[in-house]
């Protein structure tokens, strides 16, 4: 007799095979002790963390830590409910004003996570008769947001403006009721959306545009406002979503818009209404981190120096990388690899380097990847340790290639 849990058996078999082949479960790594924003203890060994999206390294910034401690002492550990029911704390509202001012927008809404921000905005902004036209490589939160709403969902080929235009054209008059969705930096390959071309196309067809700046906030643009700032199209992007859990070093999400009507959506978004609001300590450290991010030119310079050092080093070793230098560096593994991707990932871990293992179908194009993300807090010496570990992986792969 089968039961509800039967369907998880294939998943468990796959997991068990993965663990048997490498002695590790790469998707259930336990961080035994956090040492700093770039180091931790895993399997009893000190490792350099190169897969945390902690782009500006602010998780241990003394000002952010102090702000969080002060808030938890003064306002408690949690809000114990939603903003609609329990009320917004003054700090929630203040952070919304700070975000609106930072982005030069009339409206901002703070959510409990970045995932929830996309769920709320995508499911509520569009409805029956509307269309969401999304880049095929968009994050799962965008896919899930479309499933929670009633709009028709169509994908266009990744970073291909001509493909986007073809699909908008095909929609005819419906193009005016279409929300185009792209990301500033794509989380797996680290490449950026061709935003200038996409903005031009959305104007031609009267569509609206949402850019998810989750991985580009604090990373791109002179003030860290993301790809829209870097491209010089901020006034032409209709909605920006993002997260506090990467460059801002806490947990939470947001949406800002050049349209003041965003404020009305607050009352209609189920993922905003029916979940607990962010705890005071998270809001406090985020607010402090946003100040540091906005004047973080030095942090961004260090981050990009680190990204360039690692990308160029890996390129020299002959690895197949994502198309652009970026704080997200995808090391694509050849499909024929006999040393399984999990073993290569374990090899890096045993040499004191933690990266993200990405297996199909999570990586675009069905390949396996070792995904690195850099931080401004990494030292050049740490990057060199990472490069040495990858050179051992490279040697294994070449040995295989010549055997």
């Amino acid at each position: 007799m089968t039961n509800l849990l039967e369907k998880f058996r294939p998943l468990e078999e796959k997991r068990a095979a993965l663990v048997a082949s490498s002695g590790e479960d790469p998707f259930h790594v336990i961080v035994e002790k956090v040492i700093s924003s770039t180091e931790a203890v895993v399997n009893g060994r000190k490792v350099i963390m190169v897969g945390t999206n902690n782009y500006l390294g602010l998780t241990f910034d003394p000002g952010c830590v102090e702000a969080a401690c002060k808030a938890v002492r003064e306002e408690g550990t949690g809000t114990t409910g939603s903003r609609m029911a329990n009320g917004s704390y003054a700090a929630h509202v203040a952070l919304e004003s700070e975000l609106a001012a930072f982005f030069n927008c009339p409206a901002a809404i703070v959510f409990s996570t970045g995932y929830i921000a996309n769920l709320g905005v995508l499911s509520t902004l569009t409805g029956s008769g509307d269309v969401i036209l999304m880049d095929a490589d968009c994050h799962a939160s965008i896919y899930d947001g479309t499933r929670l709403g009633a709009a028709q969902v169509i994908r266009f080929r990744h970073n291909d403006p001509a493909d986007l235009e073809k699909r908008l054209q095909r929609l005819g008059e419906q193009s005016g009721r279409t929300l185009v969705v792209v990301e500033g930096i794509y989380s797996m390959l680290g490449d950026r959306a061709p935003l200038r071309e996409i903005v031009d196309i959305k104007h031609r067809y009267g569509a609206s545009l949402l850019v998810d700046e989750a991985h580009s906030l604090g990373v791109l643009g002179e003030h860290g406002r993301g790809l829209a700032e870097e491209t010089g199209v901020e006034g032409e992007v209709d909605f920006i979503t993002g997260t506090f859990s990467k460059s801002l070093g806490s947990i939470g999400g947001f949406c800002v818009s050049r349209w003041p009507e965003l404020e009305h959506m607050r009352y209609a978004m189920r993922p905003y209404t029916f979940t607990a609001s962010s705890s005071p300590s998270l809001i406090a450290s985020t607010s402090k981190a946003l100040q540091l991010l906005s004047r973080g030119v030095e942090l961004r310079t260090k981050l990009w120096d680190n990204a360039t050092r690692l990308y160029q080093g890996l390129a020299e070793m002959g690895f197949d990388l994502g198309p652009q230098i970026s704080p997200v560096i995808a090391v694509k593994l050849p499909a024929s690899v006999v040393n399984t991707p999990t073993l290569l990932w374990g090899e890096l871990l045993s040499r004191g380097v933690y990266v993200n293992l990405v297996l199909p179908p999570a990586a675009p194009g069905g390949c396996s990847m070792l995904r690195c993300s850099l931080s401004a807090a990494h030292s050049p010496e740490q990057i060199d340790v990472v490069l040495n570990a990858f050179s051992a992986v490279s040697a294994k792969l070449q040995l295989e290639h010549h055997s």
Partner: protein
Amino acid sequence: MHSREEILDQLYELIGPHSEQPIVLSEQTRMMDDVGLDSMKVMELVMQIEDSFDVSVPLNILPDVNTIGEFASHLETLLQDADS
């Protein structure tokens, strides 16, 4: 106007190369269980079908589509709506 037969023939042509093993495709062929497509590949296939028929195919139909015949029925409706 596409006849149902034309739609099916075009679908067989588009889906055939995705099959991991040689398989005779019919209206009853299940796209995931028989052809072996996973959810990502089905979404890639939708883009190919959109371009081949020059019609928008919302992903929203996918939960209701199991067989090639069911996909053809949805396409018939979408093509009719696009013509009207």
